[in-house]
């Protein structure tokens, strides 16, 4: 049986590059309820930025499309972050995840998935060419020792 999320939020926004900053700030606001460390918060913001940038650059290269970002909190301080698009999809997901591989030209480094893998605990990518891509990341935040004073 699937565990029920204790809290969740869904945000939908167009793939304007100016929304990269909005997406990571909104994610940071939602995650603040989990009492993250500064490093954990930065890891999540960076991963959101990478996932949303991938959609802007690769899913909708010549148009503005819809991005759906979902954040869910599960018991045990587990965060699940999903970034979904209905863009052109990825023909070869394994190749896309290879460090330094990019089809994005000189503005891109090909390190987006590597950063997401490094900063989050789990990363999965589901894609259907012509239909879109869903990137799901999970990260367990460390429990903080609460002061008893």
């Amino acid at each position: 049986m699937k565990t029920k999320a204790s809290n969740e939020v869904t945000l939908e926004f167009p793939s304007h590059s100016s929304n990269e900053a909005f997406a990571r700030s909104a994610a940071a606001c939602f995650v603040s309820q989990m009492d993250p460390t500064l490093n954990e918060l930065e890891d999540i913001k960076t991963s959101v930025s990478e996932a949303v940038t991938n959609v802007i650059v690769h899913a909708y290269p010549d148009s503005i499309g819809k991005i759906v970002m979902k954040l869910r909190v599960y018991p045990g301080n587990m965060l699940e972050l999903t970034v979904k698009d209905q863009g052109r999809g990825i023909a070869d997901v394994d190749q896309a995840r290879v460090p330094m591989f990019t089809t994005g030209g000189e503005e891109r480094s090909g390190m987006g998935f590597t950063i997401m893998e490094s900063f989050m605990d789990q990363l999965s990518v589901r894609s259907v060419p012509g239909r879109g891509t869903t990137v799901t990341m999970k990260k367990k935040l460390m429990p903080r020792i609460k002061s008893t004073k």
Partner: protein
Amino acid sequence: MEIQAKSADRNLLLEFCGELDHHGARGALREVELAIDAALPRMLVMDFAGVTFMDSSGIALILRAQQRMQLLDGSLQVRNVPGQARRVLDAAGIGRLVNIK
């Protein structure tokens, strides 16, 4: 993303201020190329002290600057990289390719 350029004796210092994501890096890449072409430096220093956020777009910017400096037979140093940006560079192993102080 704001970039301040200071040039003297074919040394070029570029000071970056703000968020270096895909949105900010597109304009930054052009500015860096223009500054290098104008100064034709032997040594380029990219100072990241004012960078408040960086994702892999910053890696692309650094690698392009490195390529440009190699064409000029010059060198590149990246310095004063704040913690979050440093962890992005470390995760990508960029320290093996670029001189980071």
